[in-house]
């Protein structure tokens, strides 16, 4: 059975969950709608698993050893020969020497092809990659916008990850959101969120990618503002929507431009068309425009500002946004349109933005006390690493990190949810030796944290190392990648540091006064800038800030979700490790053949990565093992970090404020002129009505007299005028 026969159900089922929950959710009992959503998503997840298996079976199978040989042969034999030919041509050597060099090269290429053939264990299924489309929007004389699916390894892997992680987040929410009045609404939103992401990663047409991308934007808007009575949540939802919308403008322009160049938005055609049709400068421009969209969605510098404020949403939403959906969409988009990036020179920008963001966010994270905000910075930083990988030609590595990150970040966020649920506060300083009371949360947090820090053999270690390996390999193309190696490891060091800090303060240390009591509540975001003191006070009062004493452990639904994700965070890295002969790298790759470095080229990266991770953890241990009340950093520095380098303030002053001024006359026009016009019409109708109303006296005689008089007038008029 072709996976196409059921793949369309995968996004449709959660969408159905949305429909039922939004229409009938409140009639299905307290939890009926939630159970339905989870059930439907469970079916989706099973289908996604089947899809992954089928795509894996249909994909070409490579022998790991053979692939390594090909890679080595390419870099050791073919590349020098190519250089020789190019060199011979450049210095204008005699025809004979050029010819000889060329012959050598051709012989080597033949040998390479032989090696490639030998490495192929089983050729691809003829139907691979599975794809289908139906007419959707036809344009006279053009390719139009057919609606279709493409089920290649990338799509299959993403679908599986999104469905599985979303399912566990749903399960977690079952217990976590139990006290909320708008329980069915929450499940409706979160189901459609998952459905949009699932549909996006399967879409064959860039236009539909954009469509579902925007749908996700709407759902994130609604979910971030789920506690809409809080002013801070209102501000946050607007901010998230506006910032991503600005970025989407770039994405849309990029997509329009692609249509103009190719006449189609078919993603399968992109692979063949991009290298042939596009000139380098056009490809660079399109790539940068698409990347602007990705930067906004994936919260990369300089559009990272929305993600921290998005923490106003319920914690499962944060997990959803940070792991399975939304931010992953940006990375996915760049990965999907990679041929365009390869045809131009946009990748260096991608790498630098990614690398810079990775370090930037990792520097900020240790200055925060709100557990969710620490993890939010961590997401920004990790996504930066993914873009660094993509920018360094490490397509497979970036996707590998995307998958592992989805698991351990969802785990960490759900752990933070459990910590908040159990202790009643988001401030790690106020959490009271949680290790005593919350063993499940503690151990799963440790697993997630070690994975994030990149400690062997957890998932994050393998994928992070792959990214760094790609950056190292890219140095040969551009010297500045060497700097990015340092930046990447710097970010990793800080990552290990801040996650260990959060763990030590929250789980190991007794409750203490937060050193930044006021700051922890609303650390330097847009909300702080745009809210009056009264609104801040009202929000604070609305926040149920009851510290639980003692903290309590999570129940079964939450615990199950945590342990399943922890299982992923432990084992998932192994699919990209030597233990499985790099199964993932041999499955998801760009181009004709996977690219595998020999172990001899990899072990150094493993050693450095482990050393960096342990250095970060060790540093945190030294600083925070015993007492953390006095953060040792000088206050101005902490202040600078907590205000996020005043970037939000800058945006507020440069963009938000002037816009408010600009819109004031427009608002006046709307309120006075337009509304006045409408009011005038209403007034006119009312006056006329008042006059005509008098005729309706309610006296029968009046009506009859009117009737008789009219009849008389008619008779007279008709007899004088004749019947004409």
């Amino acid at each position, binding site marked *: 059975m072709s996976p196409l026969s059921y793949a369309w159900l995968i996004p449709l089922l959660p969408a159905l969950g949305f429909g039922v929950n939004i229409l009938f959710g409140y009639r299905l009992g307290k939890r009926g709608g939630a159970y339905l959503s989870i059930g439907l998503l469970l079916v989706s997840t099973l289908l996604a698993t089947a899809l992954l298996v089928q795509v894996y079976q249909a994909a070409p199978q490579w022998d790991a050893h053979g692939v390594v040989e090909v890679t080595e042969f390419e870099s050791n034999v073919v590349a020098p020969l190519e250089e020789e030919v190019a060199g011979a041509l450049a210095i204008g050597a005699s025809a004979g020497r050029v010819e000889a060099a060329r012959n050598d090269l051709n012989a080597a290429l033949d040998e390479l092809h032989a090696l490639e053939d030998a490495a192929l264990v089983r050729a691809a299924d003829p139907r691979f990659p599975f794809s289908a489309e139906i007419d959707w929007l036809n344009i006279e004389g053009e390719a139009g916008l057919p609606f279709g699916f493409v089920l290649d390894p990338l799509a299959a892997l993403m679908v599986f990850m999104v469905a599985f992680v979303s399912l566990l987040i749903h399960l977690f929410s079952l217990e976590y959101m139990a006290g909320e009045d708008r329980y069915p609404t929450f499940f409706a939103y979160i189901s459609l969120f998952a459905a949009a992401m699932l549909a996006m990663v399967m879409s064959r047409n860039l236009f539909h990618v954009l469509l579902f991308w925007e749908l996700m934007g709407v759902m994130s808007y609604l979910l971030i503002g789920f506690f809409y009575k809080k002013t801070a949540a209102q501000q946050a939802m607007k901010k998230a929507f506006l910032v991503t919308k600005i970025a989407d403008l770039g994405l849309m322009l990029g997509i329009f431009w692609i249509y103009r160049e190719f006449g189609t938005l078919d993603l399968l055609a992109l692979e063949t068309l991009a290298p042939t049709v596009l000139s380098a400068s056009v490809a660079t421009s399109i790539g940068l425009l698409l990347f602007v969209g990705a930067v906004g969605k994936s919260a990369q510098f300089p559009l990272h500002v929305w993600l921290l404020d998005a923490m106003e949403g319920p914690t499962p939403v944060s997990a959803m946004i940070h792991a399975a959906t939304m931010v992953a969409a940006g990375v996915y988009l760049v990965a999907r349109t990679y041929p365009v990036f390869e045809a131009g020179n946009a990748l260096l920008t991608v790498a630098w933005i990614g690398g810079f963001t990775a370090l930037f966010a990792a520097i900020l994270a240790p200055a925060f006390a709100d557990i969710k905000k620490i993890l939010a910075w961590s997401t920004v930083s990790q996504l930066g690493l993914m873009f660094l990988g993509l920018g360094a030609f490490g397509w497979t590595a970036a996707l590998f990190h995307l998958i592992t990150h989805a698991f351990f970040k969802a785990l960490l966020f759900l752990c933070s949810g459990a910590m908040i649920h159990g202790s009643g506060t988001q401030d790690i300083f106020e959490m009271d030796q949680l290790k005593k009371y919350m063993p499940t949360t503690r151990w799963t947090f440790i697993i997630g944290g070690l994975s994030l820090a990149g400690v062997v053999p957890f998932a994050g270690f393998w994928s992070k190392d792959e990214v760094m390996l790609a950056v190292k390999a890219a140095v040969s193309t551009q010297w500045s990648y060497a700097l990015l190696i340092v930046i990447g490891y710097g970010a990793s060091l800080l990552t290990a540091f801040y996650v260990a800090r959060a763990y030590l303060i929250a789980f190991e240390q007794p409750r203490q006064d937060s050193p930044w009591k006021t700051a922890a509540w609303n650390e330097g975001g847009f909300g702080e800038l745009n809210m009056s003191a009264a609104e801040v006070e009202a929000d604070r009062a609305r926040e149920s800030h009851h510290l639980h004493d003692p903290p309590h452990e999570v129940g079964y639904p939450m615990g199950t979700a945590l342990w399943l994700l922890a299982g992923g965070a432990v084992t998932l890295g192994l699919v990209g490790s030597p233990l499985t002969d790099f199964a993932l790298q041999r499955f998801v790759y760009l181009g004709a053949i996977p690219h595998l470095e020999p172990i001899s080229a990899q072990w150094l990266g493993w050693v450095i990565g482990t050393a960096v991770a342990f250095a970060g953890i060790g540093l945190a241990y030294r600083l925070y093992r015993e007492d953390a009340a006095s953060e040792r950093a000088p206050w101005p520095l902490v202040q600078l970090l907590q205000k996020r380098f005043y970037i939000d303030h800058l945006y507020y002053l440069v963009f938000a404020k002037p816009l408010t001024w600009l819109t004031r006359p427009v608002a006046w026009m709307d309120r006075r002129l337009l509304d006045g016009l409408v009011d005038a019409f209403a007034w006119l109708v009312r006056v006329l009505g008042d006059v005509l109303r008098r005729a*309706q*006296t*309610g*006296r*029968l*005689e009046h009506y*009859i*007299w009117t009737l*008789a008089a009219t009849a008389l007038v008619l008779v007279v008029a008709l007899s004088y005028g004749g019947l004409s």
Partner: protein
Amino acid sequence: MLTLNHFLGLSALLFAVGLYGVLTRRNLIAVLISVEVMLNAVLINFVAFARYGDNVQGDLFALFIVAIAAAEVAVGLAIFLNVYKHNGAADTDVLRRMKQ
């Protein structure tokens, strides 16, 4: 010798009497009777035209008017009865209050 004009004259007279009744009487029953008189005036017109115009459409219409007048009286009386029950009186001033 009776001519068409005699019948038309009678009809006009009856119609005028009926209209006068409708316009002047307060009692709803009286108003209804007056309406009936007007209806019958029209009926005479129809029958007369049928007789002198040598066709049957007028007769047919007259039959219709008789049937519908009966139905109308039944409905009208039922309404007036209810008005009376409700208000203890059945005149046109009472109906005025229905406006409010």
